[in-house]
């Protein structure tokens, strides 16, 4: 079992955190606890899905991006933008205007991430048909899903289709293209405009890939505001966009729910929403799912249109993209195809490694012993999952207790029982609550 810490885009700003535990209650991998009145993240369990970010009432969860000024370090500044970025804008704003504003902001090249969809799709089909991947094969498109499988469904790791998402291929293409124009590698800065935290984590510590050729990540909400303001200010001032390329309908819809599934000839399903995906993976793991060849699984509801960094309403974003797709050319020959041969060589990922967060102990007998202890601890707990102990559920507390990370006395029900038996006084119980929720919340003069 690997135990090294993983890069996470999600961080907790402890100055802003009010210790409300909303994040802890929604985390699909139980990666959060409350201690000293602040949320605390267990790095090995976090999959960067961003549910905590979505539910934080005080914006104390931050998604670390690269400083925009970093783009200035490069002579050639390539913005790789996903289609959902343009989908954010009101309908009277055109793709040209959006791209033009990005140029105004200092980028020298604008490229849409989905331009590489043709190649990715081709490789997916080849790999599916090769029969080398366990069925149902699972798309590696959504990095939060890849991480979910690694930590919670390690037995399903062989189902992950080892094909990179379009973003990575687009970035490789653009770098290659500029190099062919005689540009030095070091002069090129490739920046991805991300709709979510998981993509950041994927760029910073890629799974199944040595290193990404993307130099930085800019959060979509940040750039949206900049671009939108610019467009509203100077409506007419167009900036020429070098080698503009058109996306096809398939490209535009790729990152939406059904975007991949739509084109798979084999029997396939598309599922979005991390909890829906988790429930379905349980069934896949039980071998209950027969005769399905391909699964498109996305962490966010409405897929990338619902990414945590997209400011717009996800349904409206999806609708706009569908409209754009309806007008898009069906057969456009893309420049990227010139590099097809070379790009196809690096389009596969290395095998993804499982890193189960569930294992109680590497030694089976110790693990069984701990499991027994958890079972008997559970018998003492109320099973109301009230989270007053600072853990997301009674079971999570029991697990923490057995692993020496918490005390059963953190349970308010246990405290009451001990008080009744004169085995704990009110002050001690208050002290415990203070340790969990912080001093101010238990201040009697409040």
């Amino acid at each position, binding site marked *: *079992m690997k135990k090294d810490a993983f890069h996470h885009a999600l961080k907790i700003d402890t100055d802003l955190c009010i210790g409300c535990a909303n994040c802890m209650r929604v985390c699909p991998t139980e990666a959060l606890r409350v201690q000293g009145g602040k949320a605390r993240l267990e790095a090995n369990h976090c999959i960067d899905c961003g549910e905590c970010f979505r539910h934080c009432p005080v914006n104390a969860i931050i998604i670390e991006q690269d400083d925009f000024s970093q783009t200035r370090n490069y002579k050639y500044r390539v913005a790789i933008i996903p289609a959902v970025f343009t989908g954010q804008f009101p309908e009277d704003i055109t793709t040209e205007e959006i791209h033009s504003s990005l140029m105004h902001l200092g980028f020298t090249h604008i490229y849409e991430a989905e331009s590489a969809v043709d190649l990715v799709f081709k490789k997916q089909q080849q790999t599916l048909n090769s029969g080398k991947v366990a069925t149902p094969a699972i798309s590696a498109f959504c990095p939060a899903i890849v991480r979910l499988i690694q930590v919670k469904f*390690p*037995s399903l790791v062989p189902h992950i289709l080892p094909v990179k998402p379009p973003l990575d291929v687009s970035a490789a293409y653009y770098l290659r293209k500029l190099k062919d124009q005689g540009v030095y590698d070091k002069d090129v800065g490739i920046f991805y405009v991300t709709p979510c935290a998981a993509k950041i984590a994927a760029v910073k510590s890629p799974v199944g890939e040595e290193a990404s050729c993307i130099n930085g990540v800019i959060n979509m909400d940040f750039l949206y505001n900049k671009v939108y303001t610019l467009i509203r200010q100077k409506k007419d001032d167009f900036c020429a966009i070098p080698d503009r390329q058109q996306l096809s309908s398939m490209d535009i819809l790729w990152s939406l729910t059904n975007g991949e599934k739509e084109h798979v000839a084999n029997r396939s399903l598309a599922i979005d929403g991390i909890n829906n995906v988790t429930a379905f993976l*349980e069934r896949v*793991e*039980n*071998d*209950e799912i027969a005769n399905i060849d391909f699964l498109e699984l996305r962490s966010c509801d409405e897929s990338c249109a619902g990414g945590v960094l997209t400011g717009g309403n996800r349904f409206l974003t999806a609708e706009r993209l569908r409209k754009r797709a309806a007008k898009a050319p069906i057969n456009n020959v893309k420049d990227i195809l010139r590099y097809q041969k070379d790009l196809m060589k690096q389009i596969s990922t290395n095998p993804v490694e499982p890193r*189960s967060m*569930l*294992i*109680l*102990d*590497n*030694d*089976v*007998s110790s*693990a*069984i012993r701990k*499991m*027994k202890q958890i*079972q008997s601890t559970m018998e003492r707990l109320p099973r109301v999952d009230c989270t007053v102990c600072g853990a997301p559920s009674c079971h999570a507390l029991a697990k923490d207790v057995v692993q020496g990370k918490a005390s059963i006395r953190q349970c308010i029900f246990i405290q009451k029982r001990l008080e009744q038996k004169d085995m704990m006084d009110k002050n001690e119980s208050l002290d415990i609550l203070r340790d969990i929720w912080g001093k101010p919340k238990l201040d009697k003069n409040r």
Partner: protein
Amino acid sequence: MKTQYDIEGGNFSKAGFASSEVKRMLKQLNLDIKLIKRVVVAMYEGEVNIVVHAYHGTAEVDVSEKRIRILFTDRGPGIKDIDQAMQAGFSTATEKIREMGFGAGMGLPNIKAHADELNISSTPGKGTQVEIICYIKKDHQNT
């Protein structure tokens, strides 16, 4: 370590619940993934057999460092001829049950194929006991 699950005859929507719980438990023990799969498949078949063929039953699961043992005990019609029941394709399932996707007569053979030991005893008219054992060998541990 012992756990026990109730299995309700006729409740098809809950068929697989106990084996799913056991899977979740075994995933925490650093066992070989293939071993977990074998246990879960065998247990699923035993569980479904109670749902499909019996009135009510329990599954007792005992995990030690040497083996995983599952004991199904049910109240039900019992099995008259166990050798016959073990044959691939033999089934007394009704047309209705077949329509629901059960009754291929593959359950018991499937348990046999996946478990290290399978012991069945039955009293017709009363009920059935099915014992499934899978051994945890040293090489079943992931290190």
